[in-house]
């Protein structure tokens, strides 16, 4: 059935997460201004709250699917603060890749470690087929030798291992790219620095280099060493992990955007504006009209996220919907936070409030996990029934 009203059970979880999230907000400014520090893995406030997953006990059949709830939870947590968490989960993006593509042996060996995902390089971002990092098999020692440089690696400092994209043969293009599991401490693997960023500053984003870094032959994720000929099937498998991560990052950005909307609405109300939804839009003051427009964008984007997650939860294909949610979320969070500052005027840029931080924090949403432009290419190819060659 088509239904958009959370059950009582759902609502209880969502409310708890919001209460928790608010506790994180008081540390938000500190870690924004102390970029070099890491927010603790567990806040003192966490001890008063049950672990998030325990909230899911006693779910009933008519409760919302966990896939959809997980999006609402991400949004709810980030509504408090993106970079400060009550409890920092162990997994990284690399763990998602491991689960999606690893052999059973690899999964059991590596799943306990926090794994980052290293794709981007100084010379390639949106087009990962241009990866320059190389992996060469040394048959004498049965080892891969990795050489290259990676940037923008989320959790690159805190992680215990990293899934690295490297090419076996540059001339093979996308088909030549494989993922490798590399543990921290492997010889020749060095985390060179933590990136300094516009927003999400407390988040750990690292640069790393691999200089003749030797790893066991069994560390090729998925174990398939041959380069597929024409097809890029292997590559497509790698891209599959995006079907949940794309809506998830959109949900994160939207949680922050919602905080900006709530703050702006409260400020307007405090200044004597009536924010209500019954009358016609035309008869409202301009700032209230603007707020309504932004609320609509937020709601619309959040619903595209929930739709992508719902499909995934139902076991239905969702790669186009994942791109839709990412494209829509990416533009909505920009418009919402920019618009909130516009509504509040000079107050909006003051560092006495978090709005200016939220404005900086959300900007990455339309870039990482595939830019809005990449998402639109994916959507357009589906819509027009074009291949990559026909539309690029």
């Amino acid at each position, binding site marked *: *059935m*088509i*239904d*958009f*009203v*959370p*059950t009582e059970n*759902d609502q209880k979880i969502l409310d708890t997460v919001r209460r928790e999230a608010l506790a994180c907000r008081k540390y938000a400014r500190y870690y924004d201004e102390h970029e070099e520090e890491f927010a603790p893995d567990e806040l003192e406030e966490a001890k008063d709250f049950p672990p998030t997953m325990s909230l899911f006990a006693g779910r009933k059949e*008519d*409760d*919302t*699917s966990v896939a*959809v709830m997980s999006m609402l939870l991400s949004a709810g947590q980030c509504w408090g603060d993106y970079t400060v968490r009550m409890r920092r989960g162990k997994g990284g993006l690399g763990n998602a890749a491991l689960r999606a593509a690893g052999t059973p042996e690899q999964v059991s060996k590596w799943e306990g470690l926090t794994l980052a995902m290293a794709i981007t390089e100084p010379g390639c971002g949106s087009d990962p087929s241009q990866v320059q990092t190389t992996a060469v098999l040394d048959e004498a020692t049965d080892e891969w030798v990795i050489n290259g440089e990676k940037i923008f690696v989320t959790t690159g400092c805190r992680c215990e291992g990293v899934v690295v994209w490297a090419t076996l043969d540059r001339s093979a293009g996308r088909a030549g790219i494989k993922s490798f599991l590399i543990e921290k401490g492997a010889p020749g693997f060095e985390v060179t620095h933590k990136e300094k960023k516009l927003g999400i500053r407390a988040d750990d984003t690292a640069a790393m280099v691999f200089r003749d870094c030797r790893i066991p032959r069994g560390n090729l994720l998925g174990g398939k060493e041959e380069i597929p000929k024409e097809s890029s099937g292997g590559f497509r498998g790698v891209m599959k992990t995006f079907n949940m991560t794309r809506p998830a990052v959109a949900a994160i950005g939207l949680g922050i955007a919602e905080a900006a909307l709530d703050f702006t609405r409260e400020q307007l109300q405090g200044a004597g504006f009536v924010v209500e*939804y*019954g*009358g*016609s*839009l*035309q*008869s409202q003051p301009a700032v209230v009209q603007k707020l*309504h*427009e932004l*609320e*609509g*964008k937020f*709601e*619309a*984007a959040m*619903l*595209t996220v*929930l*739709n992508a997650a*719902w*499909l995934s939860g*139902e076991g239905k294909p969702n790669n186009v*919907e994942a791109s*839709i949610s990412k*494209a*829509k979320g990416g533009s909505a969070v920009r418009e919402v936070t920019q618009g909130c500052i516009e509504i509040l005027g000079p107050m909006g840029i003051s560092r006495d409030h978090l709005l200016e931080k939220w404005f900086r924090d959300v900007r990455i949403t339309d870039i990482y996990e595939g830019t809005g*432009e990449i*998402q*639109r*290419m994916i*959507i*357009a190819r589906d*819509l*027009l029934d*074009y291949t990559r060659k*026909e*539309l690029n």
Partner: protein
Amino acid sequence: MISFGPTEEQEVVREAMRDFAEEALRTVARECDESASVPDALLQQVWELGLTATQIPEEFGGAGEERSPVTNVLVLEELAYGDAALALAAVVPSLFANAILDHGTEEQKAKYLPLFTGESFHAASLAMVEPGPLFDVLNLRTKAEPKGDGFVLSGQKSLVPLGDRASHFLVLAHNTAQEGFAGIEGFIVPRDARGLTIGEPEKNLGLRGLPTVGLTLDRVEVAAADRLGGEKGFDARRLVAASRTALSAVMVGVSRAVMEYAIPYAKDREAFGEAIAKKQAIAFMLSDMRIEVDAMRWLVWKAASQLEHGLDATRAAHLARGYCARESMKIADNGVQVLGGHGFIREHPVEMWYRNARTLGVLEGSVTC
């Protein structure tokens, strides 16, 4: 539970409506637009789909199916995908019937609902919009003054759909004793009421296949029995939310029509040696249409779901209406742009959809769910 899955029955209805819209509405849409009229035969054909009667209880002669705003927005999107003007014309009787069903007293239900369960199309309409700038349902200029047990109505209405043939009008007026939604009253006014003048057909920018008229109410007396909901009045908030939600569903349908027309055109049309769809400037416009059609539809579904739960859908409906108005206009605008000069020529439907999108964005009270 948050879920995006229509029921099997809803899927069946959706598919049937899509076929009907393509075969019966899209094919005559241009003709109706040019002649600014809707053929009686078409209204009769739509009537036989049972859109209005299905959700009327059996005791009043209907099919007694569950009153479902969600199913209704699914139907509206599909019909509007065929043609928005004809979709609106098709469901005008529901404007009146659903209001009686949701808000009427038992006597009102018994008296009026059977009008809509017969074999021939029966028109009755809603008079909500008023002429002049800045129409706002919360500030109606049509006034209802108490007189004895009843009321006296004075004012002007416009954009009353199928007013040329409606047997009754549900007239919304401001009962000055109260403000806001509480001050909105509905009155059932028969076509031949003393003091009611029905104007000539209005000439509008878009939705020309939907005949509309203005009404002048010059001290029209209404008995207490014809006050919607009787002594306690009615929940205007819900009626307005249902109207906005339904209107938004129509905007989704129009947007989808534009998108689905623009895609094959962009693949066929060549410039500089290749299909224009292969240019990112065009491909991205089409992607944005796809994104926004989804986003709009989910906003509509959310509002409809709240209505179905009996919740206050005021905010959801308001946000959906504002969002759909903006985005459907943008989609229609870009649809014209993708077709270039051909988008401006009446041989293609895109210019009509462009006019229709602008028109829909400012309408209220023309459709319900």
